[in-house]
């Protein structure tokens, strides 16, 4: 994988993008849209590396040491950058400073098999509950509460 690929995406802050990893699955809630997401396998691990700020330069060797049947460098880079673009489109990641962190091992919390194209599963059936909505937030009695600015 080329060392010259600059990746400067960062996950949104935890205040607006709550996320939690368990048994190799990341579940995230975007409080601005009310959507929630599930990421497994390589997608969850990309979340992990983004969170830790690991430089993109290290990603190929990290994935190669954890997954079987890793595609060739160009194909792998295509998968990774395509997923990062997807995160940007979904509004989960934003531009920040370039990732420069050192290599970190992936958590040993799941069985990893063959490489699969990373994907995001989005859900919105709870959006009306999860979204931050200062207009309709209610007080103790169930009446709309006037928010001070």
């Amino acid at each position: 994988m080329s060392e010259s690929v600059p990746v400067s995406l960062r996950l949104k802050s935890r205040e607006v993008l709550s996320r939690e990893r368990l048994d190799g699955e990341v579940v995230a809630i975007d409080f601005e849209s009310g959507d929630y997401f599930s990421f497994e396998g390589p997608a969850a691990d990309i979340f992990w590396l983004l969170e830790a700020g690991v430089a993109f330069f290290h990603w190929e060797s990290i994935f190669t040491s954890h997954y079987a049947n890793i595609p060739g460098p160009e194909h792998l880079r295509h998968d990774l950058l395509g997923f990062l673009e997807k995160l940007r489109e979904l509004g989960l990641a934003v531009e920040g400073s370039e990732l420069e962190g050192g290599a970190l091992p992936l958590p040993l919390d799941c069985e990893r098999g063959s490489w699969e194209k990373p994907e995001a599963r989005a859900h919105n059936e709870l959006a009306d509950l999860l979204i931050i909505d200062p207009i309709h937030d209610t007080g103790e009695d169930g009446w709309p509460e006037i928010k001070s600015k």
Partner: protein
Amino acid sequence: MAGLRSNRSRQRAHYLAQSMLEQSHGNVESGIEFKLAGTSVALGWKLIDPLSELIAGAFWESHSDSPDFRIALLRRSDPHTLPSLEWARPWIDKHQILPEQISYPYRIMIDRPQGLIQVFDTVNNVGAIYIRHEEELDSRSFITPFRLMWSWLANQFDGEIVHAASVLIQDKGILLSGGSGSGKSTFAVHAASHGEMLIADDCTLVHNSLLYPVFRRSKVSQATLQLIGSTELIESSTAVTGLNGNGQSVKSIIDLSRSPLSVTAGVNLDAVLFPRVSPSLGSFQLTARQAYERLTSDSLREIHGGGTRNRLRLARIARSVPSYRALLPPSLDQGLGGALRLVTHV
């Protein structure tokens, strides 16, 4: 530099977790097993004393050949060496759970006011609880010990422990949610003394739309007992003021294991009531959003803000069953009657 600091904190957090787990489980000489919904938990300790007996008495004891979770207590009197916690000061000072990006796959809470450190390994399903001085524990701990740890365990099987009482009224499973003083426990205990079934007080585990008790004991004030006018359910009238005898209000203990039916198998959730003491009797249905907000504001506070999955499960509860604001008059009989009429429409 921030990344370097994060890496160092990660190493120290992992060392703390591994050290506590190793020392606490190496010390276990006694303990109990209990059910948490369909799973079994082995809770072990070295020292048998009044505190361990109080903790043991808080659960519905059961036996399993291979427990799903193993938790061990580490006490001041046990031989142990804890690493320095100076690196964790930012989270200790803010009374926060250590952030996942530092602690994962462990969950770590260092609770300075209570003198507790709770550590849970989410991969191997083992945990440790360090108790600095039993005298520092809040008296609530004798009834609902280590609430956060059980929430972490429930999270492993997609269960949610809600700060709520629960009752079976006319074959309907009702979750009674609300902060302290809302009347939920008073109402639940009153219903139980009038032939309905008390499932849980203070902490109810919701899993697959079923309600389960977490603890087998309830604690009620003398004022509540006088309101209810019944002492049949009381296991012990021994005053509970805390081991430190610091003048906390006197409470009596109700043993839920005396319930006529076993509730540990789970009771279907049919509705959520948010009681509130009011001059007059009444009720109105809440939107799912209103119910979700109330559930999160009350239940997540108890687990230091909770996590992503906690919020999702509470949203699903709010979406899955109707929720009502129940205005309960000071007259408990009138309140129970109103709730019974409400339940018939659920």
